């Protein structure tokens, strides 16, 4: 933080900054002030906005299971639960695929195939969230309802996750769309991590007479393990904050149910859904508090991802 501050605001010696650069430096400083102001105002708003509900129900707000604005019942647990559950479903589906894709891209595929394949995955990231939502409602959800959920229900109904009638719309489908959306993020970061692993390590392992798979297992996956964790954390962060497509597909019911087939709601979706029509003071404040929590957790997760990446990079630099 201090470094950033110094960078922008420390008095530069005249010799350091050429006259022609003054305008540019001034512009940068204004920009920096603006960013800091926005950030401060955001935190102040969230904090100030949350204060009413936190005064009303204390920290118990985050553990309350009932959410019914009409009878002034505000408990945030169903949304925290929904956010975690959809994100975990998304990770369970996306992480293995993304890691395999990154291995394929860096270690196996012939350049001719790898390039277009990488491009296709990157393209997934360019599709707007609301378009995913539309496609989800009209294509993915019916498909899940007619094929995937009946299948899971038939063969895995001994697990509590796959019980209940197939609606299509619900936690499972929301998690599935999230998986598609975070796939490019995790793949891209894993790819970076694998590319940063020195060739000498791969060759050192191969030269001992290991097969390609043994090499990939030790010199790529194990050596890049912390980087893979960072990629997953980053994907987790994205999944938690993702709003539009999830709101369109999750069903928006503040329930806590073990079954992935049932509808639910997330922290992001309840804010998007209810803030336009929230009128009571407590209702508005509850949404701000949920927003605050989401903000802090996302910040924490992306901070964690950065930290892991930093440590990994330092290790390879040696």
């Amino acid at each position: 933080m201090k470094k950033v501050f110094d960078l922008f605001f420390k008095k530069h010696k005249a010799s350091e900054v050429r006259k022609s650069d003054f305008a540019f430096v001034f512009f940068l400083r204004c920009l920096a002030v603006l960013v800091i102001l926005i950030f401060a105002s955001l935190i102040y708003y969230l904090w100030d906005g949350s204060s009413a509900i936190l005064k009303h129900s204390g920290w118990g707000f985050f553990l309350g299971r009932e959410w019914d604005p009409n009878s002034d019942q505000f408990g945030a647990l169903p949304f925290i639960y929904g956010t975690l559950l959809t994100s975990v479903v998304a990770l369970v589906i996306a992480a293995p695929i993304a890691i395999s894709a990154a291995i394929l891209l860096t270690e196996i595929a012939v350049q001719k195939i790898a390039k277009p394949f990488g491009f296709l995955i990157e393209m997934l990231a360019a599709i707007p969230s609301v378009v995913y939502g539309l496609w989800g409602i009209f294509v993915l959800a019916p498909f899940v309802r007619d094929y995937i959920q009946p299948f899971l229900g038939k063969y895995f109904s001994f697990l509590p996750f796959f019980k209940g009638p197939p609606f299509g719309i619900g936690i499972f489908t929301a998690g599935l769309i999230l998986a598609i959306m975070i796939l490019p993020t995790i793949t891209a970061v894993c790819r970076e991590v694998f590319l940063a692993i020195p060739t000498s390590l791969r060759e050192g392992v191969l030269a001992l007479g290991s097969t390609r798979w043994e090499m990939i297992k030790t010199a790529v996956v194990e050596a890049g393990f912390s980087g893979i964790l960072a990629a997953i954390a980053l994907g987790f962060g994205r999944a938690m904050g993702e709003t539009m497509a999830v709101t369109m597909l999750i069903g928006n019911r503040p329930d806590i149910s073990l079954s992935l087939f049932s509808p639910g709601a997330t922290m992001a979706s309840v804010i998007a859904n209810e803030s336009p029509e929230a009128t009571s003071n407590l209702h508005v404040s509850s949404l701000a508090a949920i927003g605050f929590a989401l903000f802090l957790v996302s910040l924490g997760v992306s901070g964690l991802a950065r930290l892991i990446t930093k440590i990994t990079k330092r290790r390879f630099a040696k």
Partner: protein
Amino acid sequence: MSSQPILSFQKVHAYYGEKHTVKGVSFDVQANEVVAIIGPSGCGKSTLLRCANRLHEEDPTARVEGSILLNGVDIFQNHADPVVVRQKVGMVFQKPTAFSGLSIWENVVAGRLLKGEKKAGLKEKAEHALKQASLWEEVKDKLNAPGLSLSGGQQQRLCIARALAVNPTAILMDEPTSALDPISAARIEELISELQKIITIVIVTHNLQQAARISDKTAFMNFGELIEFNSTSKLFTNPESKLTESYITGHFG
């Protein structure tokens, strides 16, 4: 009197894409010989060496022609498995690379751990290889310390022990001392002369004195071609080629 060579390079050509980097190199390496490959930077020494354990092919653009016989069998034969070739022909690189996350003794038997062998039975193997690489005395009290905690010279001997632990027929070394201080380099040279009793070694080096000190035969390459292959004493005192002479006397180019 010349028995079957351990390694026989026969008209080896190597390419990176269109780039022809090794141009029809042929020479034989007999059992328990140390053969040095010398030549100016970029002349294809490393490429030639990497052909002999099929590491060259790991580059997606790479291609090899000709044949290299290992104990009389072509390593490029249709059904030859690069994995098996690499177990018989070990390699030591310029930069010592102890594997991070593995202890000293685990590093030595990394080749076997990779194959899924249980750690329990491997301690003796590690000790044996460390003794062969004359590193045992220095590390016997800290076998469980991380491999990366060793000095550069020790790590290079660790790499040699690691190569030996796979029980290869020959070991290729690509400038094994160029990243080391003179004393560590001297220790590696001693070690090479010691190892010669049990194994065959092909070494690339930029250090002509080193080649003269430790090798029995020397190959001089230039622009991908083998200019001269001779006994080291002959090549350094009375070379057949003018080009060799100007290279070893430093009047090259």
